[in-house]
């Protein structure tokens, strides 16, 4: 399979993620979109890793690191979401406007 296909898939996933972050109002959905972007990067890394063969094993290792770190990040993120949900009973980012400018 040509690497171009994989790169196109990864770019599409990344773009969908960027769109989600910019367009969604719900914090959990934004978090999901960020996960989508991270997975796009993972596909990218694994594709390049396969392209380089045995010398490109760093790409696969890096993908594992990204998965682990993403889990830690989501842990903290969801904790913040719950904290906000308790106080406001919604997690709409458009309503988070105590501070402006």
């Amino acid at each position, binding site marked *: 399979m040509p690497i171009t296909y994989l790169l196109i898939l990864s770019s599409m996933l*990344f773009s969908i993620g960027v769109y989600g972050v910019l367009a969604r109002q719900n914090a959990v959905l934004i978090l999901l979109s960020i996960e989508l972007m991270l997975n796009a*990067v993972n596909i990218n890394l694994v594709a390049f890793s396969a392209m380089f063969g045995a010398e490109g094993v*760093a790409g696969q290792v890096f993908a594992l690191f990204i998965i682990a770190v993403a889990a830690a990040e989501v842990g903290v*993120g969801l904790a*913040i979401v719950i*904290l906000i949900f308790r106080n406001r009973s919604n997690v709409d980012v458009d309503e*988070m406007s*105590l*501070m402006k400018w």
Partner: protein
Amino acid sequence: MDFVAPKIALSGIAPEIALAATALLVLLADAFIGDRPRTLRPEHGSARPGSGILGNRWHLPLLSLIGFGAAVYLALDAWDRVDATGATTQFSGMIAVDGFSVFVKITLAVFGALTILLGHEYLVRRDLEEGEFFALVLFSVAGMMLMASSADLIVTFLALETFSIALYVLVGYQRSRLDGQEAAMKYFLLGAFSSTFFLLGIALVFGATGSTNLYGEGGITSFLATTPAADLSLLVLGAGLLIVGLGFKVAAVPFHMWTPDAYQGAPSPVTGFMAAGSKLAGFAALLRLLDVVLFPLRWDWRPLVIGIAVVTMIVGSILAVVQDDIKRMLAYSSIAHAGFVFTAVIATNDRGISGALFYLATYGLTIVGAFAIVAVLGGPEERRTRVNDFRGLFAAHPLLAGILTLLMLSLAGVPITSGFVAKLVVFGAAVEAGYTWVVVVGAIASAIAAFFYLRILVVMYMVDAEVAEEPKAVMGPLSIGVIGLSAAATLVLGLFWSPLIELAEKATFFAGP
């Protein structure tokens, strides 16, 4: 079969190990001897009787300070080794042991120790949990240190996330504050968003060069040395995305949107720590990446960085003028300061690197003191942080007003303060490299910036009949100590700057391929 243990040299990350171990110890000790608020009571802000500032809650901050002391000691030890044998890499080229990383590590340890002192008093007064705070500060300083010594993009990413995740929690540490929660949310979402761009940058660099290593065999440095310039477009694109990701961490325009909100909502000691520490860590990675590793590509990335520098200086200074809240104002001022440091980055010479390090060290010491003053004047929920709340400060607390004057003048870059020397060094480096017009823009931005620093001073000294409520400073020995130290450093480094600059010049030795 004989097991041959690999020879592992740990001196490169010994300070980080010390901090991480201390953080774990603090968490463990907190479970046994920590004096925790047992129940959540509504009347936050009143310390329980018998738990004074230096009363029975001194174990954990002392333990944390010992950790920072050990980190400094180990970093100095590494410095001696670098002096003796030259810069090297460890962990199969993953960690750089050089003067640059050691200088940054020692500076970061000082910032962290000051944050512990301030945070202790801040938390005791508000009756908040302490153990997690100290552990998070220790972990984030460890991540920032790793950022400075990483010689592989994987390590850079791990370090970035280590300190960022700790900072997301610290920003929302005062859970009862609505604006704190909001600040944590915004900082987290935008931070995670920018991390993905940083990661995509690494992926593209990996795709272009086949390696994430900066110096090692087949690494990016040797790739650049052997590849014709025409084949580098993917690497340039990746480098651009890396600049985006790190530009977010140092709060450069146009990636600065989170800064005012996060700075305003975070507890003031954390704000000072973010302003000092995460800027230094971000610029440490940027300097190593741009001025050393991607030096052969400088004609490609420099236009982008010049653009960021100019826009950052101008936008930061102008938006600071219209702020009413002093924390937001200092946030925009920190954005402008990031722009000033960028003028040293584009110089790509040794004076630029040492100048940037000197700038960030002195700026950090000053801004930690400034936010300490904001903390002692802010009241339990930090509601009194508007510029008008400082009205009549001179009449109420003349000494505090005097110190705040000194710190503001230093941030504005007035002579006999460290801020003046720092600006001189970074602007000098840029002029030397032939970017005089950027320096002219910087000088104009400094002039605009002087306006809002002076505005605080005017309000402070104004004898006004209609002071609604006099500023009231609530401070114990630790806050007084940190504020005094910050003022002393600002003044002394403004008069006798050469020792620190000489150290920073020694820090321009980088590990090589």
